[in-house]
């Protein structure tokens, strides 16, 4: 089980299964070929996706060039298109979501894996997996009916009164806005972080903990200083899975973010995300340039996800190389 974090890193486990693969190769070329084709289809689909996004955004790319990324105007009537407010909204809501979901998710995972009785842990894990399967539109509806009024009437005025000196918590409390979007996303990505992190912690070999305890560590020290660092590659993996989900989430976000493409320092202000504007405006987009600008937004979102995932891989690579707990 010590190889589990590696599995996240490379996608296939090490020696034992690799040997199996070799036997398959010599024994059954067909199986090798077919599975390789299936694996290759992933690359094919991704490249087709990029190609289509690239080819169908040509008008917008030529017209606006790099300024598309930095312009704050999104005006379908006068055909001026800029992605900055949407990039900003996507990043801010995802950041808020991770800021909340990571500590809560990790804490919950530690409790479930290390401290809770196994039966309780398994039961809760089942509920968490259920949460991950709830369609996003349900989360959006719940947010509209419960979260948004709560934010408008209690949380935002409260935050404003306490921390109003910070630009983050200024301005009128609409309920909908960056904060609402981030909170919904936090709830939505939480199950991913808990579920994967819990599995990773459970995969930490028992002798690691026993060694720490034998050296005089308390139970918490054995958890926090040994088990968590041992599983950190997997835990980071779960966080980046959550980030990927948050970046691309459409329905729940558009229902609560306020759908106004503006850049505001305040979390109370309404904003807009890339996925939300594509979903909202695509079907009624009439002009060619307008359509191409929307598709270019899709391209931007793809590269944003690509870059963030790349950084994530790098981070995992760096931290696991530094670590000594692995083979």
């Amino acid at each position, binding site marked *: 089980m010590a190889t589990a974090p590696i599995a996240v890193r490379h996608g296939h486990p090490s020696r034992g299964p690799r040997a199996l693969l070799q036997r398959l190769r010599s024994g059954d070329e067909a199986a090798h070929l077919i599975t390789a084709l299936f694996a290759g289809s992933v690359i094919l689909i991704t490249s087709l996706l990029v190609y289509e996004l690239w080819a169908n955004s040509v008008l917008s790319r030529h017209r606006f060039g790099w300024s598309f990324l930095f312009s704050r*105007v*999104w*005006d*379908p*009537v*006068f055909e*001026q298109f800029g992605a900055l407010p949407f990039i900003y909204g996507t990043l801010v809501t995802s950041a808020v979501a991770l800021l909340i979901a990571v500590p809560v998710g990790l804490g919950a995972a530690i409790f479930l894996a290390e401290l809770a009785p196994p039966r309780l842990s398994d039961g809760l894990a089942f509920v968490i997996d259920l949460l991950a399967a709830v369609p996003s539109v349900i989360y959006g509806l719940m947010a*509209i009916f419960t979260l*948004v*009024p709560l934010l*408008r009437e209690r949380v935002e005025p409260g935050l404003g009164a306490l921390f109003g000196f910070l630009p983050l918590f200024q301005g*009128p409390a*609409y*309920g*909908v806005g960056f904060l609402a979007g981030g909170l919904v996303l936090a709830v939505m990505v939480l199950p991913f972080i808990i579920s994967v992190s819990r599995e990773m912690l459970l995969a930490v070999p028992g002798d690691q903990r026993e060694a720490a305890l034998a050296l005089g560590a308390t139970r918490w020290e054995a958890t926090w200083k040994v088990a968590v660092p041992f599983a950190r590659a997997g835990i980071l993996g779960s966080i980046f899975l959550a980030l990927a989900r948050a970046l691309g989430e459409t329905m729940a976000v*558009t*229902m609560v973010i*306020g*759908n*106004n493409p503006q850049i505001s320092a305040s979390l109370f202000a*309404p904003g*807009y995300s890339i996925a*939300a504007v594509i*979903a*909202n*405006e*695509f*079907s*009624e*987009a*009439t*002009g060619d340039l307008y*359509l191409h600008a929307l598709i270019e937004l899709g391209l931007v979102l793809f590269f944003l996800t690509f870059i963030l995932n790349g950084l994530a891989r790098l981070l995992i690579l760096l931290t696991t190389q530094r670590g000594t707990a692995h083979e």
Partner: protein
Amino acid sequence: MKVIRSLAVLGLLVAPGGSAKGQSFGPILVNGAGATFPYPIYSKWFDEYHKLHPNIQINYQSVGSGAGIRQLLSGTVDFGASDGPMSDEQLAQAKVKVLHFPTVLGADVPTYNIPGVAQELKFTPEALAGIFLGTITKWNDPAIAGANPGVTLPAKDIVVVHRSDGSGTTYIWTDYLSKVSEGWKKKVGKGTSVNWPVGLGGKGNEGVAGLVKQTPNSLGYVELIYAIQNNLPYGRVRNSAGAFVKADLAGVSAAAAGAAKSMPDDFRVSITNPPGNSVYPIASFTWLLVPASIQDGNKKAVLKEFLRWMLTEGQKYAEPLACARLPREVVEKELKAIAQIH
């Protein structure tokens, strides 16, 4: 019996087409795509028409006006549908001439939520334009209060709510504001999505209505149908004759009748803010887009016959579905225009 009848119907239908000889008598499939706003009435029509002519199946996908126009231009559907007329630029792109046929009328109403104000509010065009431009920010602004004597309006900020998804509803609303406000026309313009100067966006009529219902001191716009079906409070709007009119189906039809006199031959006309004493000013046609020349004789015959039926008998289905029917003047003009399909 049924088969014989449908064969007879088909025979009648294809006869005027002339080129139908030797074509099979299988079911005739006609595909359309476009606007979502008139979808309830369109699906009712296609359903009723199928009952009358069991061998004719008209499929309609409510994918949105923009997508409908694109599919029509690329030839993947036999007809399109749109809440806004096609632009000259789009018509120039089309390989075949595209004809516009108004089908029914829709209207937008201002809906609001002001705690402590139970009276029905009256809005002047200037007040609506100012609120949506962000130049009027408080409910007790003289531009609003002046039209509502006897109503105590709070000194609170107006929370403007608009549609976030591209929609015909937004097209009607912004078309109206463009006509009544020079500032709006220059700064924002009209379209299915625009660059809103202020406000929160809600997805769909239900999203706007939900935000308005929840947010104190808010003002948004929704389709008349939606407001009627959901018992939303909505305000009166001053028309060009100076009367404050509460939107209803008759007032919307009156708006179309008022515009009929100056109707261009291609029916691409905006009827917001028309002349007339009883007209409700924020209304618009929605259009079917039909190619002027159709190769397939069967399909051509079906479309021509369907248009005729839709303009005459079909109109009776409009009002139960809370769409305003076309005024007689427009129907007559359209019936003549069907002959342009060849």
